[in-house]
């Protein structure tokens, strides 16, 4: 087994400043190996999104260590976490989260605005990535002119633009019908095949079966872990 890209050790997460604080994650231990495809299932409110946000460096743990690629990011500053999100992590959301006033091309460009590379040097790259999700003829369209499946493919292109090692998806097919959902999942399968680590939240057991490993979360604790 390869070295873990993600390693959570005794992670707790509380919400709120005043007692009683909401105890959402209650001691999570989880390793994800590089190139692994893990799905997280669980009932609504069990803490799946909270866990994924922690993995995505959008938030810090209240307690416990989070090692990303061997680095303990629980001690990182806001700017350093931003840099990691920009370079190492690709997010795919249930509600796509495209910026409505920007075109497909510009939406895919957004992560480049916050990175080190120049915009001019990455124009070709943007076209390539848009092409790879099959939307090269829609690059000047607005999100409102696209179907849900197309929007999610734009979001995937955006997640890929900085070639991240880790893809995090929070119910990526939750807002899609089964056919377009299947297309999106196939795309994620491809990305896994190319060697990226994927952590995906889903409540659909069939979707979870596509992953290599299932993690079942209940009330902030991992209750079941095993091969899908």
């Amino acid at each position, binding site marked *: 087994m390869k070295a873990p890209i993600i390693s959570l050790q005794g992670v707790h997460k509380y919400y709120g400043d005043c007692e009683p604080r909401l105890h959402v994650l209650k001691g999570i231990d989880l390793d994800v190996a590089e190139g692994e495809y893990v799905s997280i299932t669980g009932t609504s409110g069990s803490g799946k999104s909270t866990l994924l*946000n922690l993995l*995505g460096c*959008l*938030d810090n743990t209240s307690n416990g260590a989070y090692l990303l690629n061997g680095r303990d990011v629980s001690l990182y500053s*806001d*700017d350093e976490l*931003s*840099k990691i*999100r*920009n*370079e190492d992590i690709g*997010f795919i*959301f249930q509600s796509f*989260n495209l*910026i*409505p*006033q*920007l075109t497909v091309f*510009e939406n895919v*460009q*957004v*992560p480049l*605005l*916050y*990175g080190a590379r*120049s*915009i*001019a040097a990455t124009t070709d790259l943007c076209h390539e990535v848009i092409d790879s999700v099959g939307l090269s003829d829609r690059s000047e369209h607005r999100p409102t002119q696209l179907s849900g499946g197309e929007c999610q493919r734009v979001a995937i292109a*955006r997640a890929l633009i*900085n070639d991240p090692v880790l893809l995090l998806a929070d119910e990526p097919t939750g807002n899609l019908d089964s056919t377009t959902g299947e297309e999106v999942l196939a795309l994620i399968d491809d990305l896994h095949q190319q060697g990226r680590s994927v952590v995906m939240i889903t409540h659909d057991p069939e979707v979870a079966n596509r992953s290599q490993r299932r993690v079942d979360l209940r009330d902030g604790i991992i209750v079941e872990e095993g091969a899908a």
Partner: protein
Amino acid sequence: MISQKHLELVRMGLRSLVGYPMRTVLTMLGVVFGVGSVIAMLALGAGAERELLKEIGRLGIQNIIINSIKPEVQDTSNQRSNWISSYGITFKDHRQIVDTIPGIEKALPVHVSKKTVWQGSKRVEGTLYAVTPEHLDMFQLNTSVGRNLTHLDDEKLSRVCVVRSGMLKELGIYQDPIGFGLNIDKETFYIVGVLKDDSFLGYARKALSVDAKSSEIYVPYSSALRRHGTRSITRRSGSSEATDVELNQVVISVTDLDQVLVTARMLGSLLERNHPEKDYELVVPLEVLSQRQKTQQVFNIALVAIASISLLVGGIGIANIMLATVTERTKEIGVRRALGARRRHIIAQFLTETTTISTIGGGVGVLVGIGLVQVLTFFTGWSAAITLSSVALSLSISMAVGIVSGIYPARRAAGLDPISALRHE
């Protein structure tokens, strides 16, 4: 590289402004009118100042003008014993000035008298100015027809005159006026030149005691003095009044501009000694100009301060709308943060948007201001001058308004917690 990213940021900022055109326009309006009124106020101020320079500058800032004035309170006993009222600057004063005060280039004598001017059966009430030829040069009294007075006219005591064109029609002269004879006190003066019709304005007219009717007749000083003397009799409803003023005016030109005020002080004390009854006034155009400029500047500052209030209101408007925008775009801010935007990127984004709004508003405001000035000058006849510096000032102020009004909303946006922002619907 940085600048190119910034351009991209501006472009995307513009995109969100174009996305809500009505809101963007309404947000801009405050700055548009603020800058418009600042431009208009500055233009009117500059116009007034230019007018002032034209008006007082015509007097010559190197000159000092001494006018004889009739004393307010007449000594009654004096009047009874002597029916001629005699006051003002004398030949002796003139001689003393020339002899004792240093740094004087010229001291030109002027004699002014009201006369009835006849041409055939037509007549005009005119003002006869007995002046030296230099006087006409000094005040840029140039002829449009014929010639000006010369030293030869003066030496030969020629009976020639230069007139304003306005009076020609009243005298029934419609063809070439050169050579027409005007009868003044039983003497005939022949017209040799007609002045360009650019009479003195406002203060300059008062300082040179020129009336608004433009009925000045300029004759050689020596000719007039030899023929009419210094006494003049004015008949008014039965009673007649005689005055004897040797010099109505002396125009002094100071060699060195730096010495004008010093010379004026010396002239003042000389005249004070000779004329305890204060029957003269000393006009120093340089002093008047700087006083009036000071007043004008205070006025300008007040005007611009008032106009700036609308700019301030414009800035508050931008801040207000931007705060609303931040709430509305909380989700977008969360998304951008998730994609790697740092706090300063979010700040830069919102500052770029507010600065773009206010700068475009400023640009439109400049055009509105120029339009406003055109309309105002058209309907009121006020003088106005739109200066490049006022445009530059307004544009920089509007840019600053954008930055200042953007700071609070931008910091609010950047301070949002990424997760809460993402969860926001």
